[in-house]
C-alpha cells in the first residue's frame, strides 16, 4: 500500500467516522414525497413545467394583445360580447343556403382596429389623459404612443396584408369562402 493510500484511508476514517457514528438515522422518507425545493427546482419534469408555464403565459399575452387590438379593450368580456354579437349579426345577414361569415367577421375586426387607431391619435393629441388600461388610447404623456392597443391598431392600418386589400366597407357576403358551419 502506497503512502497516498494509507493517508487516504486514515484521512477518510478521521473525517467520516464521526459523521457516520453521530448521525441519528432520520425516518425514511415516504416514497413520492420530495422536498418542496427539490420538487420545484429539480428534474426534467420541473424544466418541462417551466416551459409549459412560459408557453401558457406567452399565449395568454398574445390573446390579450390580439383582443385589445381588435376590440379596443383589454377586458376579455368586452371582446367576447362584441365578437359574439357581431358573429350572430353576420349569420343573420346570410341568406338561406349561403355559407361563409369569415369576411364579415374580418371586416368587423379591421373596422374596429381603424376606429381604435384614429381614436388613439385623437386622444394622443389632446390632454393626454387616456385610460390605457381600459381603452388603450393614450399614454399619460399625451402622445398616445405607448399603448399596446394603439400599436396594434396602427399596425393593422399600415400593413396592406391585413387590411389594405380588404376595406371594412366591402360587402360582406359577396365572396365565397368556405368556413365550417358554426355550432
Amino acid at each position, binding site marked *: 500500500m502506497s503512502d*497516498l493510500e494509507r493517508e*487516504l484511508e486514515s484521512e477518510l476514517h478521521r473525517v467520516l467516522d464521526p459523521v457516520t457514528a453521530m448521525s441519528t*438515522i432520520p425516518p425514511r*422518507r415516504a*416514497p413520492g414525497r420530495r*422536498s418542496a425545493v427539490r420538487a420545484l427546482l429539480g*428534474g426534467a419534469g420541473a424544466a418541462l413545467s417551466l416551459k409549459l408555464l412560459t408557453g401558457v403565459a406567452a399565449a395568454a399575452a398574445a390573446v390579450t394583445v390580439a383582443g385589445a387590438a381588435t376590440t379596443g379593450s383589454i377586458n376579455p368580456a368586452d371582446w367576447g360580447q362584441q365578437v359574439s354579437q357581431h358573429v350572430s349579426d353576420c349569420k343573420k345577414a346570410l341568406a338561406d343556403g349561403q355559407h361563409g361569415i369569415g369576411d364579415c367577421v374580418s371586416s368587423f375586426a379591421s373596422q374596429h382596429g381603424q376606429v381604435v387607431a384614429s381614436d388613439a391619435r385623437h386622444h394622443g393629441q389632446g390632454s393626454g389623459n387616456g385610460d390605457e388600461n381600459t381603452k388603450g388610447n393614450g399614454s399619460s404623456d399625451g402622445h398616445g404612443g405607448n399603448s399596446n392597443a394603439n400599436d396594434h391598431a396602427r399596425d393593422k392600418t399600415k400593413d396592406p396584408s391585413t387590411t389594405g386589400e380588404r376595406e371594412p366597407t366591402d360587402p360582406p357576403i359577396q365572396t365565397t369562402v368556405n368556413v365550417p358551419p358554426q355550432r
Partner: protein
Amino acid sequence: MQSIDDPVKDKPAPETYAPGSEVDFDRLYRNTYRRILGTLITLVRDRATAEDCAQETYERAFRKWKEWRPEASAEAWLHRIAINVAISDRRHQQLRQAGELVRRLGRPAPGPDPAMVAERSDLIKAMKRLPTRQAAALVLRHYHGYSNREIAAALGIPEQTVASRLAAARRQLQAVLRR
C-alpha cells in the same frame, strides 16, 4: 441468502433480506444508512445535500426492491444507486444551489457539526473535484474496504475498469493535493 464472491474477512456475516418485504427494507435502511451517507458526503457538496441524496437513494431502491436479487450484496446495490443519485445531483448542482439558499433562509446558525469538518477537509474537497465515479471508487475501496471485485459487482463494471479508475483517481488526487 446473500453471497459475496470475495468477502473481506473482518466483515460480519451479511444480513439476509427478502426482496419486496417492507419490514426487511426498513431493516436494510437502518443497517446501511450511515455508510451510504458517508459515501455521499464525499461525493456531493455538503451534508444537507448528502442527506437529501441518501433519502432519494432509498426511495429509488424501494421502488426496485421487489426486483433486487438476493445473490447481490444489498449494500453494494444501494451504493450503486447512491452513486447514480450523486451523479444526477452534480448535474443539477446549479439549480440546487438556488434551492438550498431558499431552504436555509430563516434557519438559526448551526452548531458545531462533524460534517462541517468533513466539508473543510482538503482531502474531501479534492475528492469532490474528481469525477463522481472515480471518487466513489476511492471511498468504496479505502473507506468501506470493498475489494476491487466487490466494487466491480456494485457498479456493474469490469474489475479492470475499477483498477484503472482507482489509479486515475489517485493520480488526480495527488495532483490536486500538491497544488
